[in-house]
């Protein structure tokens, strides 16, 4: 039977995931800055206030630390809160709560208190929002044991990761690349929850493993198509979950291709790409036929001007050029 598909945006898919969660579980509520009357800074929660009311769609004051911490408390108190933080840069105001409380409570209490909290936030550049709204800090968060870090790059994941995250007994951070909100694709009519512990191999090839996530995944798709015209066939892996990493996925790929190129919008030094690279060195060294390489953002605060921002971010051309060099020498 043919699968029924419909066209929608990444934003619509997130909205649908939220709506489903609110319908399915009375304990679920959404809080954050401008999630209610404004409809969400990026319009992700549009319409939810009318449907679910102000008790469950809660506009908060501009107090990232308080409302994120309140999410932790509410989770401890038996609810299933979804906290929306406008952008990853603002999340730093709540970093104390995320790092010192959400991530530690289970361990610090010797297993007494788990924190079933979901925190969503926009991440990444590409919208000319300059140095306080454009960074990709999910790799930073992936450094922290005790939380899980997801980054949906596809409609399927935008739609399906939230419910799986809510079922998780521990804090889950979902990073939504802001540049993807208007992206229009098709999604199965019956799309639902998705696994959040596995990476996904989107495209198969024998020559090189392109390992990425988030908005860079789409640049990898474009690069893979160009490389295929040259006869270079690449695996494209969407990590999806940045913590805990599905290490097996890229080790398996590297065992086949013997070459790995990691594309990560975070800064290079101490990046998630560095972690992936290190794991390949540690666990697949003798599979390598070329040095592992990384394409990351330039190590500057994000500039405003379009051409400067483009120069700072990983781009298709550099992915293609690096891949060619790695395969052909």
């Amino acid at each position, binding site marked *: 039977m043919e699968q029924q598909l419909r066209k929608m945006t990444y934003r619509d898919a997130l909205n649908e995931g939220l709506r489903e969660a609110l319908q399915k579980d009375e304990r679920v*509520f959404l809080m954050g800055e401008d999630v209610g009357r404004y409809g969400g800074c990026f319009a992700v929660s549009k319409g939810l206030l009318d449907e679910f009311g102000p*008790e469950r769609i*809660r506009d*908060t*004051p501009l*107090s990232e*630390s*308080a*409302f*994120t*911490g*309140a*999410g*932790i*408390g*509410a*989770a*401890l*108190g*038996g*609810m299933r*809160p979804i906290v929306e933080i406008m952008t990853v840069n603002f999340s730093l105001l709540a970093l*104390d*709560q995320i790092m*010192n*409380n959400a991530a530690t*409570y*289970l*361990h*610090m*209490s*010797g*297993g*007494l*208190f*788990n924190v079933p909290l979901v925190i969503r936030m926009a991440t990444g550049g590409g919208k000319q929002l300059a140095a306080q709204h454009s960074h990709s800090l999910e790799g930073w968060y992936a450094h922290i*044991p*005790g939380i*899980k870090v997801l980054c949906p790059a596809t409609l399927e994941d935008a739609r399906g990761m939230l419910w799986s995250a809510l079922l998780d*007994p*521990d804090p889950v951070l979902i990073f939504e690349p802001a540049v993807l909100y208007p992206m229009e694709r098709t999604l199965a009519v019956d799309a639902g929850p998705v696994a959040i*512990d596995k990476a996904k191999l989107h495209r198969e090839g024998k020559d090189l493993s392109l390992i990425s996530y988030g908005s860079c995944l789409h640049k990898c798709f474009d690069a893979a198509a160009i490389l295929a015209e040259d006869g270079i066939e690449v695996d494209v892996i969407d990590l999806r979950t940045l913590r*805990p990493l599905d290490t097996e996925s890229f080790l398996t790929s590297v065992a086949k291709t013997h070459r790995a190129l990691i594309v990560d919008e975070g800064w290079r030094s101490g990046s998630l790409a560095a972690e992936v690279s290190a794991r390949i060195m540690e666990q697949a060294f003798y599979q390598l036929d070329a040095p592992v390489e990384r394409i990351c953002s330039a190590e500057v605060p994000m500039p405003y001007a379009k051409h400067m921002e483009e120069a700072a971010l990983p781009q298709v051309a550099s992915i293609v050029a690096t891949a060619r060099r790695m395969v052909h020498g």
Partner: protein
Amino acid sequence: MTNTDIKARQPLANQEQSLHLLRQMLRIRRFEEKSTELYSAMKIRGFLHLYIGEEAVAVGVAEALSTDDAVVATYREHGHAIVRGMSMGAIMAEMYGKVDGCCRGRGGSMHLFDAEHRLYGGNAIVGGGFPIAVGLALADHLQKKARVTCCCFGEGAMAEGEFHESMNLASLWQLPVLFVCENNFYAMGTALELSESVVDLSSKAAAYAVPTATVDGMDVIAVAEAAKKASDTVRETGAPFFLECRTYRFRPHSMFDPELYRSKQEVDGWKQRCPILSLTNRLKEKGWIDDSTLEKLEEDIATEIASAVDFAEQSEWESVEDLTRFVYSDVGVN
């Protein structure tokens, strides 16, 4: 808005309750004195922040709380843990770092947790507990549970942004939080007047339209009474209340503190107002306690502490193989 000022000392009304309060304060005092000894003997390590001198606050407030209420405390929380009903053995074993500790040796002195008694830490980030308390109250509000979340903090935490954010949120959303400020006049070594532009702490809460009261934190009877009123208000209104208890820490901030920031005379002056000493004297005046009863009380407490120490000594160390347990709820995730 209500504002209960510090009142003149009230006569004792109830012998049984008074004796109970004395016993609770003594349990904390003697437990901590033992802890000091064990710290010096290197049985307890890390930071050890003593509550000695401030016992009336935890004991008085605990009287106003039911077992169903929640407590969020600070790293100076041995007293709160004891009066919430946790066993001294579980607390002592935790400070020993043993597997039978309340947190299996993962928390230590600063992080005492207990699910049964709804003690949500033991938070070692100053101000870190405010939002959690607000969230616990939010959960109760959304689930229509008539419970109180008691959030204890020192006056130093009121300089943190999280105090202001949380006070605003609790008031804005009308959430049932009893904020208890344990004002011991020093944020570690920085005196109140050196860290706050306005030293009338209640006025800060009042700025968020939260009702307040201030009480002598060295008088357990007064604290118990004020806390009862405050918690009743929270239960009735489902909204927050701010209670300031003026108290004093007799011991250094932690074990390794030469106390350069305050004079011996000042400390001695406060010691004259020791909550245990003054209650004992008042009980004696009333003829509600004599030396032999007091001796018996001390003996019972000594036995309880000895058994707690014994329990901690006998307890095993957690297996290092379990190092990464409790990072995630699902076993094997890391």
